[in-house]
């Protein structure tokens, strides 16, 4: 948890600092200084255009976070309400079929993995960060919907919701006051896991050429372009690889930690 949070903060820090300061301009080309190894001037070395790798890693953190934030936001803002609404309907005798329809639609969406959507989206909207993160986000909707639905069902079945209903609280109020805060934990856990997945997805898509495009720096792109230098300048692949791994690791560990924290079993134990 702590390690995870630190890693996430590191990535976040890199991205934030890149707005204020980077060692070089990311598009600053210096053919004379191309393909250098780590040095004082370029701690992580330079790429084939003589651009500073450290600068690129810092800028890449932005894209990684952007993709993660947008994808997770899409998935969460659509998936969570869908799950809650489905669960609310499931609790009404006349609404069971609405729940069934929503969840089946959700299952169908599940049949379109992120990569499939991304390939199609890249073709429809031309490849880029935008379509990639939308695809990743849409593909993550079912996960959120499921978590939100099962969490909501659990909350709705609880005695305290029965108590709230007995105290005349209306459904929207119950959803806002009881359901949301109580499923927030699970949704946050899901979000951090989805974040980790989206980092990997962005890298994979950029690697396929379906993600972030030139001239925007991204770790996936760096990795892709470093391929032809693997045997001559492996550090070109090393840095983006390491940072992708760190970001994924960070969000996964954070998710694990949050899961432990929000785990009802743990809660009972702490009580």
């Amino acid at each position: 948890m702590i390690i995870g949070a630190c890693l996430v903060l590191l990535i976040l820090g890199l991205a934030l600092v890149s707005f204020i300061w980077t060692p070089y301009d990311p598009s600053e080309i210096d053919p004379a200084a191309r393909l250098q190894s780590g040095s004082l001037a370029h701690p992580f070395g330079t790429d084939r255009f003589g651009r500073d790798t450290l600068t690129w890693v810092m800028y890449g953190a932005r894209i990684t976070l952007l993709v993660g934030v947008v994808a997770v936001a899409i998935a969460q803002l659509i998936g969570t309400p869908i799950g809650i609404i489905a669960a609310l309907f499931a609790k009404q005798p006349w609404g069971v079929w609405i729940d069934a329809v929503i969840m089946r639609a959700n299952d169908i969406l599940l049949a379109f993995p992120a990569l499939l959507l991304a390939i199609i989206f890249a073709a429809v909207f031309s490849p880029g960060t935008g379509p990639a993160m939308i695809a990743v986000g849409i593909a993550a909707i079912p996960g959120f919907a499921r978590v939100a639905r099962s969490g909501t069902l659990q909350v709705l079945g609880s005695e305290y919701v029965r108590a709230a209903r007995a105290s005349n609280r209306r459904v929207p109020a119950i959803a806002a006051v009881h359901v949301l805060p109580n499923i927030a934990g699970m949704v946050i856990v899901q979000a951090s896991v989805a974040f980790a997945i989206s980092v990997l997805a962005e890298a994979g898509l950029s690697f396929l050429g379906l993600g972030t495009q030139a001239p925007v720096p991204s770790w996936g792109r760096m990795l892709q372009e470093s391929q032809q230098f693997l045997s001559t300048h492996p550090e070109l692949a090393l840095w983006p690889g390491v940072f992708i791994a760190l970001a994924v690791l960070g969000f996964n560990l954070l998710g694990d930690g949050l899961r432990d924290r929000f785990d009802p079993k743990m809660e009972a134990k702490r009580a």
Partner: protein
Amino acid sequence: SDSGDDAEQKDSMSVAFTAEPVNLDFTSTSGVAIPEALMENVYESLVRLDGDGEIQPALAKDWTLSDDRKTYTFQLQDGVKFSNGADLTSEDVKFSYERVQKDWKNALKSKMDIVKSIDTPDDSTVTIELKKPSNTWLFNLTSLVGAVFDTEGTKDLANEAIGTGPFEIEKFTRGQTIDFAARDDYWGEKPALKTVQFKYFKDAVSASNALKSGEIDLVSNLQAPELAGEFQSDDYQIVSGTTNGEVVLSMNNADGIFKDKKAREAVMYAIDRKAVLDTAWAGYGELIGSMVPPTDPYYEDLTGVWKHDPEKAKQLVADAGIKGEEFSFTVPNLPYAKAISEIVSAQLEEVGLKANIETQEFPAVWLDKTFTEHDFDMSVINHAEPRDILTVFSNDYYIGYDDSTTKKIAEKADTGTEEEYISGMKEIAKTITEDAASDFLFLFPNLVIAKSDIEGIPANRVSDAFKIADLSWN
């Protein structure tokens, strides 16, 4: 396929390519992939180009041109058989060339528009009359439009290729491989290799890995030139020749920011082509300065016309009234184009030209948006067809070059004598370059990496074909 032991290696070879043929029918599908595999290997034309760009006899052992320079009379080779067993006759030639005019879908068919009539006085003689004299027509015959089909051999062109060439296709696994087998009944000199496999690699790294681990023997036109460095040893040979591909930083002459010649000139001064070549393509390739490769008869070194001069560029930018507005730079998602776009946009930015890079899927989206709808300000593409200067810089092509001057020169040149033709074409090339119609970044190299004991590798790729009959093991 497996490289196997030495004895086996003597007559088989596995060759890596990048662009894969979606089918075997170049009469209805465009692109370099199909002719690359089939021309001169399976299909042959009456004439062919040699490595120096000279026209040489092929199915026609001889030909004559009438005095009015309008009628060609070809004498066919004897004993030529198609791979389906049929004999080559003059009827086949007539059938094939008329079919270009009638049935071809490939837009290159227009190269046969000039043909007025085809006669077959006897089985081995073909007489072709042109509407007007043309210096380019015979040259065009060396390309795929010249391919000769059997009258019975065009039923399923997409899947079955029947030609007169030294090889026939044994197996076509779409998207992966083409297996060629040498024909016993080939009319000409027998190729050294019995079987050749073309293997298609989207990814240059995979191809280079395959070469390193011995799974293939030769990589034709490596699309990641940085990898060539890994093969600098006695086990491999690196052959870097020329192609017909001019990498053009094309500008929209008809519309937008680059309608203004000053803006185009600014680009010409802003670009350091040597740096582009060195960083984007590892220095492989040749600076040309015009739309003409050195292998063309009318080549002239125009690299000195526009010298790298950022200060002049900045001045021109100011003169053109450009104040940092973004222009659209549509980049096909091809390795060379993407790499070039990164350095070019950086160089342009230095002189105050801000490119908004939009990567477009190639071919689908680029063809649609940039090429057909002309929705672009700047783009970059390798124009790979031979002698395409007049096509690319014609009025209705995507660049929108005003061809009112060059068109007249071209007409005269084509109908004139050989010398007139060459001088005319030189003039055209120079005019276009001086007009700053587009920036000719460099000539795309033909970068071949092969095991060191392979001989007959065509250094220059001046025609559509990759001729495998020349290849052999040492």
